[in-house]
C-alpha cells in the first residue's frame, strides 16, 4: 500500500486518497426527481465530488430519505493535531488495588450520580455497581474503593452534600440525555457549586457519557471526561494515579513552604 501523507489525510474506500464517504440524511421534500437532485446538490455543497444518490425512500408526506456516496475533496493535516487525553497508565483490577495500597495507603472514596433530570443510570451503573460491565467489576467491588452510587435524577446540591459528608476524593457524574445541550448547563452548575462550597481542590471532578469527551470535560472545568467504551478500570486507574500525583504535588509544595 502506498504511504499515507499525514499532512493530507482523506477518507479511504478501497484506494488510497479516493475520498469515498457514505452519507445518510433526510430532506423535508416530497419523494421525486427534484428531491433526489436537491440531495445531490446539497452533497456537492458539503464538499463531495462524483456524488451518487444510490437510494431514495419516500418517508410519507413531505420527507425523503437518501443514501449518498461521494468523494470528499477535503483533507486533514494530522501532524497539526493536539488532542487532550486523560493521562493514565492502563492497569487491571488487581494492579489498581495494589497501586492504591502501596502508593496511597488508604481507601479512595467516590460518590457518583446521574444528575439533574437525567434518569438513565446505565452508564454510571456500569462503572460503579458491583457487577460492572463487559466482564469487568465495577468500583463497588474494588476493596480499595469506597463507592457510593446515588442513582438517577440526583440534584447537584445533593451530590455535593454527599461528597462533603463522605469526604469524597472524587465526584463522578453521568449524563446521557443531551438533547438541547441540557447536560452542558447541568455539568457547569456542578462545577460552580463545588467551587462555591470551597472543595474544588479537594476532589477530582469527573464526568462521563456517550457525548462526553475529555476535551469537553476540561472546557467545563472538570478534571477528566470519559466517553463511550469506557470500562470501570479506566476510571479507577485514572482516579488512583491522579490522586497519587496530587499527593506528590501537595507534599512537594509543603516541602517548599517549609
Amino acid at each position, binding site marked *: 500500500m502506498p504511504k499515507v501523507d499525514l499532512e493530507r489525510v482523506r477518507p479511504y474506500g478501497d484506494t488510497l486518497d479516493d475520498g469515498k464517504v457514505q452519507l445518510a440524511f433526510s430532506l423535508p421534500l416530497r419523494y421525486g426527481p427534484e428531491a433526489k437532485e436537491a440531495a445531490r446538490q446539497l452533497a456537492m455543497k458539503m464538499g463531495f465530488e462524483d456524488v451518487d444518490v444510490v437510494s431514495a425512500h419516500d418517508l410519507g408526506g413531505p420527507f425523503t430519505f437518501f443514501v449518498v456516496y461521494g468523494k470528499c475533496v477535503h483533507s486533514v493535516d494530522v501532524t497539526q493535531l493536539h488532542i487532550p487525553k486523560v493521562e493514565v497508565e492502563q492497569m487491571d483490577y488487581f494492579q489498581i488495588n495494589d497501586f492504591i495500597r502501596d502508593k496511597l495507603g488508604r481507601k479512595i472514596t467516590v460518590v457518583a450520580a446521574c444528575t439533574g433530570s437525567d434518569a438513565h443510570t446505565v452508564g454510571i451503573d456500569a462503572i460503579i455497581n458491583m457487577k460492572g460491565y463487559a466482564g469487568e467489576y465495577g468500583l463497588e467491588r474494588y476493596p480499595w474503593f469506597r463507592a457510593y452510587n446515588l442513582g438517577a435524577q440526583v440534584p447537584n446540591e445533593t451530590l455535593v452534600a454527599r461528597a462533603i459528608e463522605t469526604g469524597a476524593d472524587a465526584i463522578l457524574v453521568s449524563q446521557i440525555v443531551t438533547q438541547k445541550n441540557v447536560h452542558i448547563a447541568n455539568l457547569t452548575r456542578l462545577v460552580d457549586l463545588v467551587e462555591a462550597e470551597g472543595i474544588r481542590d479537594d476532589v477530582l471532578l469527573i464526568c462521563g457519557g456517550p457525548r462526553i469527551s475529555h476535551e469537553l470535560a476540561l472546557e467545563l472545568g472538570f478534571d477528566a471526561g470519559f466517553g*463511550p467504551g469506557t470500562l470501570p478500570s479506566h476510571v479507577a486507574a485514572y482516579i488512583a494515579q491522579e490522586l497519587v500525583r496530587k499527593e506528590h504535588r501537595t507534599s512537594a509544595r509543603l516541602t517548599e513552604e517549609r
Partner: protein
Amino acid sequence: MKLNLDTDKIARCRECASDIADEVMKGVERVTTTAIERTVLRLVGVDGVDSAGVPLPNVLVDMLREAGRLGDGAACHMGRAVAATGLSPQAIADKAAAGELDFASFDDVEDDRARAVLEDAIEASLARIEANAAKRCELIEKLDPGTEPLIYVIVATGNIYEDVGQAQSAARSGADIIAVIRSTAQSLLDYVPYGATTEGFGGTFATQENFRIMRKALDEVSLETGRYIRLVNYCSGLCMPEIAAMGAMERLDMMLNDSMYGILFRDINMKRTFADQHFSRMLNAYAGITINTGEDNYLTTSDAYEEAHIVLASQFINEALAYRSGLPDEQIGLGHAFEIDPATTNGFLYEVAQAQMARDIFPNKPLKYMPPTKYMTGDIFKGYLMNGMFNLAGVMTGQSIQLLGMLTEAVHTPHIHDRYLAIRNAKYVFNNARNLGEEITFKPGGIVESRAQQVLNKATTTLEQARETGLMAAIEDGVFAGISRTPDGGRGLDGVVERNPEYWNPFAEEIPARLTRGGRCSSCRK
C-alpha cells in the same frame, strides 16, 4: 404450550402473586393520595390553571390537604360546594383559585345531597370515556386493526407540533402504534403541565392538550392509511391516575402502567405508587386502554441472563394487580426485553426461551417486547442487525407489541429516518418469517426448553419468598433490580393520607360495578 413447562410451577407462581397482590390491596384500600383526588376533580370537570400557572386540581387538593380534609375525598367537598353555591365544579375551582371561596368550608351540606348534585357530572364523565372506548372499537372494526406483532415506535422531539409530523410519517411508513415519550423529568412533577407544549428534554410533556393534538393527527393518518393508529403515553410517576384520566378523556389506546416502576426507578414512595397504580389502572380498564408494564427496565440495571426470573416474577405480580383493577387479559400488556449481552454464545436461544416462555405462560395477553438498548453503542450497523435479531425473536414467538429498536440508540432521540429504517427492518423480518413460529417445535430438554424451565423455577422461588415477607419487604431487600426502597422513603409520601370513614370516590365505586357488567366486547363493553 410450545415449551413443556411445569404447569404446577406456573399455578404456584399465580397463587403466590395473587396472595402478594391481596396483601398490597389491604394497604391500598386504607388510603387515598393527592394524585387520586386531583384525578377525581378532573373527572368531575375541573381543568385549567391559576394565575401562577398551577393546575386548578392541585389548588383545590392543596386546600383540602392544608385543612386536613383530604381523607374525606375531594368529591365529597366538591359535592358540598356545588350544593351550597349552585355553581359548576369548574366555577368553584376558578373562584377558589381567585381566593373568593374556601373549598373546604361547606360542612353544612348533607352527604346525600352532596352526592346527588354531582351525579350529572360523574355520569357525563363516564359517558365520555365510554364513548371513546366505543369509538375506538368502531374505528378498529372499520379500519385494518393491524397484524401482530404490532409495530410500536416512539417520537420525542420535545415539541408536540414537530412530533405530529414525525408520528404521521412513521404511521405512513407502517407504524401501528405511536408513543410520545415524555420530557425526562415529568415523572417527578407532582402536577400535570397544562396546554400545548413546544419545549421538553428527551421528550414532550404529557398534557391533555398535547394528547388531543396527537389524537387528532393520528385519526387523520388512520383514515388516510386505512389502519387504526394507536396512541400511547405514560401513566408513571407522581401523576399516574391523572394521566390515566386524561388518556381516557382523549382516547389514548395504550398506557405504560407498571405497579412497581415508579418505586424502583423513580424513587417514588411505595404506598403512593400502589394506591395510584390501582386507581389509574381502573381508569385504563374502563377506557379500554391496554396497559404496558415495564419489566424491561429491570434489565437495563441488572444482567438480562442472570435476572431473567425477576422479569417473570414481576409479570405475575403485574398480572395479579391488574386483575384487581378490573383489567381483562386483552388489556394487560406484560413487558419484557431483548437485552442479553450480544457477545453471549447462544444468547439468541436464551432470548427466544424467555419470549416463548412468556407467550406460553400468558397466552391471552398482548405481550410487549422491548428492544436491545443496553448494548447499543453507537455502532449503528451492528445495532441494526441486533434489532433484526430482536424482530426475528418477536415474530417467531408470537409477541403482540414490538417496540422497535433504533439503530441510533445511545446516540440521540430518533431522527425521522431512524424510525423509517427500524420499520423497514421489522416489516422485512415479520413478513419474511411470518409463520416461522407455527413450524417450530423445540427439542425436549434442549437449550431453549431447559433455560425456560430454569427461569420459571427461579421465579417460583422469588415469588414464594416475596409472599412470605410481603412485597414491600421484598422491595426493601432489593429483590427487584437490586434496588432497595423503604415503605416510608421516596418521593410523594406526603401526598398519601388515610381515608376517613365517610371517604367518597364516586369513580372508584362506579367503575368496578360497570366493569363487571360486561358486554360483548371486553374493551368497550357494548
